[in-house]
């Protein structure tokens, strides 16, 4: 049985390592294709090359927040409530926040030469910034001390509220006037407006970054599990220490109470002599 478990865990480790290596190779291939193989765009020229990074990074942010929302639903639902969902939600949100920040940074770098500005308050950019702030708030809420259950319930509700911004963010370019262009791949007709090898490179970018996200999520989940175990061990150790301290205090107090104090001894002696005197007077 133990042998099977070890075999399984080593197989798992092998799969996770393979996932990590595949994602690295995928990202490297995306960079190579994006920078050297794909042709320049008819309108943007060489500036098009950020298209192989910016949309995949944004997709991973959406995916991460989506997993956080689903895991939060699973935690809030009594039938499926388990620590696993809470850990998964937290781990996914952390990665999502990093990718959301990367989306804003890469978008800003791309926006300066193409639009002519680093930043503008259009609906897409504003809702993305709001998404980042909302999930930063979610992460802050997770750090507020409290019992595990109340903290997890509170943060699960917060995750669902924050996730409401994801569809707003995605559809903002269709609902309102924005400087940001409408979606290239996930458009109304689901017909990507991108040419041959450029489309394949973009697809590779999506796959590579998604695999990278999956690898990061597994690692982050593991770290969170180890941290919780360590916390529990530390708590048990400090409780044991406190208990031993308390028992030693108790035994020393007991020893002190069984042994009469010098004042009590004096009182007892005087009482005894008083009794003797009284008995002598009675005899007389």
């Amino acid at each position, binding site marked *: 049985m133990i042998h099977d478990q070890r075999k399984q865990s080593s197989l798992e480790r092998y799969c996770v390592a393979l996932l990590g290596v595949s994602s690295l190779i995928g990202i490297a291939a995306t960079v190579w294709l994006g920078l050297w193989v*794909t*042709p*320049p*765009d*008819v*309108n*943007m*020229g060489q*500036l*098009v090359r950020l*298209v192989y990074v910016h949309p995949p990074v944004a997709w991973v942010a959406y995916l991460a927040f989506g997993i956080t929302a689903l895991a939060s639903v699973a935690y809030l639902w009594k039938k499926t409530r388990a620590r696993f969902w809470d850990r998964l939600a937290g781990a996914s949100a952390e990665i999502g926040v990093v990718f959301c920040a990367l989306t804003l940074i890469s978008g800003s770098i791309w926006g300066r*030469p*193409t*639009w*002519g*500005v680093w930043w*503008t*308050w*259009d*609906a897409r*950019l*504003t*809702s993305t*910034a*709001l998404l980042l*702030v*909302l999930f930063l*708030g979610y992460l*802050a*809420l997770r750090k*507020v*001390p*409290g019992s595990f259950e109340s903290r997890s319930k509170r943060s699960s509700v917060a995750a669902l509220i924050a996730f409401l911004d994801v569809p707003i963010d995605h559809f*903002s370019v269709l609902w*309102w*006037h*924005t*400087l940001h*262009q*409408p*979606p*290239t791949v996930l*458009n109304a007709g689901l017909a990507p*407006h*991108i*040419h*041959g*090898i*450029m489309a394949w490179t973009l697809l590779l970018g999506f796959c590579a970054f998604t695999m990278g996200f999956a690898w990061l999520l597994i690692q982050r989940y593991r770290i969170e599990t180890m941290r919780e175990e360590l916390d529990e061990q530390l708590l048990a150790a400090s409780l044991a220490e406190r208990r031993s301290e308390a028992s030693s205090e108790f035994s020393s107090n007991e020893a002190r109470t069984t042994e009469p104090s010098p004042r009590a001894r004096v009182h007892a002696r005087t009482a005894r002599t008083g009794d003797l005197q009284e008995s002598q007077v009675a005899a007389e």
Partner: protein
Amino acid sequence: MSTTQDPHRGASTQDATALAADPSTERSGDEFPGAQAMASRRRSTKRKLVVVALVLAGAIGFLFYKGIGSALNYYETVSQAVASRAQLGTSVFRLEGAVVPDSLHETGSALSFSLQSNGVTQAVIDHGSPPQLFRPGVHVVLVGHFQGRYFVSNRIMVKHSANYIAEHPNRVPRTSAPLKRHP
């Protein structure tokens, strides 16, 4: 029930129970150190929650104030702006349209051109520096105001499309083999 005046000295069991049940009675920290620590921890948790909520509310409020207000109506198209010119007056707003080909002229530090949308054209004078992708036919968003018959702008932003097309899709790829010379 209490017969003694000092509850801490010589109090009966009934006195002690009454004392414990009385919420108004203050207990020193030496008596219940655990309970006091727990209460202070609860207070600090509440304080932290309030701080997180305030920071979040502030950030969201700022984003709404700064962004959502103008973001939902980020620009007016040329046809919309011309139709509501009287209401817009000389206020600063964003104007969107396509740069009319062959309308670009450079006069000193200013750039003049025409902007078009839905068949309506507006003359523009720009004093800013156009971005790299600015060219005739491209869609732009300008920041400025009406002045006489012109729209005077100080910023041009290029609104590029979501279509990505290879520059020379039919070009024969370069080979590393040297070209053969025919005698």
